[in-house]
């Protein structure tokens, strides 16, 4: 672990009953890093992300955010989550709030920042994702791709230290995947720290600083995109990449 680490997983273990889902996973995320987490379905990607924002409690090892252990009982999960933006596969926008209010509800009610400030920041974000004209629409008026972009903007509105993204294009119509991946590439170029679980190998190769391959709860291999995709060392990685190609 180095001092520039934002988030570190140290030998993290997690079981659901007898099912050991994470078996000693270690991974570091540094400022401005984009790490893509790949692996077959059920390998534990979502679980790892959910442990990071304390939606799951871990059974062993440790997770640190800015060097502070999340297993410390004095840690307030709400404060941890305000540092971490989370985007889900199924968007989970708030249907009773307009697009703009979806963006301001966190900054205003969780961070208690004044409404005028968070509103103007939200508008800026909407301009950035090209949806400022939809600010006063309700989410169900938007396409899936637009909804997922709003969900990303909602996470960004909290000015988080890092973003966790869990297969954010998997629920989308193939024709809408591009606009969301483009937005993520832009964010990566702008230096946003991101941990991305994804099945989009092409995207991972383009955007990741590092790719980590998870196999049945074990992080068997990680490296630069070209190390992982062009020259995988571990047989499990080789097998997985053969299958997804």
């Amino acid at each position, binding site marked *: 672990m180095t001092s520039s680490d934002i988030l570190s997983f140290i030998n993290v273990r997690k079981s659901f009953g007898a099912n050991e889902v994470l078996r000693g996973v270690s991974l570091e995320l540094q400022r401005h890093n984009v790490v893509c987490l790949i692996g077959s379905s059920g390998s534990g990607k979502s679980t790892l992300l959910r442990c990071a*924002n304390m939606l799951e409690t871990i059974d062993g090892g440790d997770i640190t955010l800015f060097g502070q252990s999340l297993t410390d009982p004095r840690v307030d*999960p709400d404060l941890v*989550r305000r540092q971490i933006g989370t985007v889900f596969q199924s968007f*989970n926008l*708030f249907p009773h709030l307009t697009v703009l209010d979806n963006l301001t*509800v966190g900054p205003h009610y*969780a961070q208690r920042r004044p409404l005028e400030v968070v509103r103007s920041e939200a508008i800026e974000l909407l301009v950035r994702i090209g949806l400022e004209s939809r600010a006063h629409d309700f989410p169900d008026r938007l396409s899936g791709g637009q909804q997922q972009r709003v969900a990303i903007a*909602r996470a960004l509105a*909290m000015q988080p230290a890092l973003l966790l993204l869990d297969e954010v294009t998997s629920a989308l119509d193939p024709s809408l995947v591009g606009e969301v991946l483009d937005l993520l590439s832009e964010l990566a170029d702008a230096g946003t720290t991101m941990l991305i679980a994804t099945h989009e190998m092409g995207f991972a190769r383009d955007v990741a600083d590092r790719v980590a391959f998870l196999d049945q709860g074990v992080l068997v291999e990680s490296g630069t995109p070209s190390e992982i995709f062009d020259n995988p060392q571990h047989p499990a990685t080789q097998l997985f990449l053969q299958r997804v190609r």
Partner: protein
Amino acid sequence: MTTTHDEHSSGVAPPNLLAPGYRRFFTGRGAVIASSLSSVAVVVALVSLFYITPGSSEVRFFFFHLADMGRAFLGDPAKGLSSVGLAFLTNIWMCLLCEIIVLVLGLTFAWVRVSRSAVLLPVRVLVTVYTDLFRGIPIILVIYIVGFGLPALNIGFLSHQSPAVYGCISLIVTYTAYVAEVYRAGLTSVPNGQILAARSLGLTQQATMQRIILPQAVRTVVPPLLNDFISLQKDTALVSTLGAIEATHAAQIYASTEFNFSGYTIAALLFLILTVPLTRFTDQLMSRDRNKRLAQQS
């Protein structure tokens, strides 16, 4: 697929898509005419059926006698007859007062039941027992127990209230249990992803409830709440059993003094005037809700 295409291109006549003429008549302006005619026909049929029943003239005299209806409505202080119309005001204030208290208490109880806080555990158990009890006991028994039990207990001012107050307490106690369940169903119907998203933003449990869950729950809960409100309006009539002078009781007095039941008819009409518009409104809300959900699914 290609065979279908071939059939059309080989000159086979396209299928007929037009409804037969008589069916076309029943859409558009024809529909208005048809429905008015059928309504008139049904009403005429029902009224004439009523007139040809053997006891028709007696029933008309005892239940629909206009003079008696008027007298029951206005009352006659000289003969000790209370006005059904005035007494109905008692029903109105009872149901309004009860409804307000029930809405607040019901929400509080539902909130307690869905909360996961450890501190609230004993309260949660109490509330659960309470709702189970009062959803299970017929309301008329609750009215008897409260109306005759509280005075008998002899505990200061609680035992010296008017029948209307005991009636209201019974209605509140019973309807709070119903309404708490309606609210609870609404609160638990909000998808889990909503709660995950809210908590991931760092909203506290309370803010999540207040800003995310409750507003979504209230929408689904309005129609069933209105249904319970309609029942509550009608159940104010049961308070007559304690001797409170509300519309049903006034009609009862009229019937036993004048040997004519037209007062009951007037009371029924008054209830209808109040409940029918609400019923229509509730149905409209429900169908609008259903249409919206259908639209979202497609």
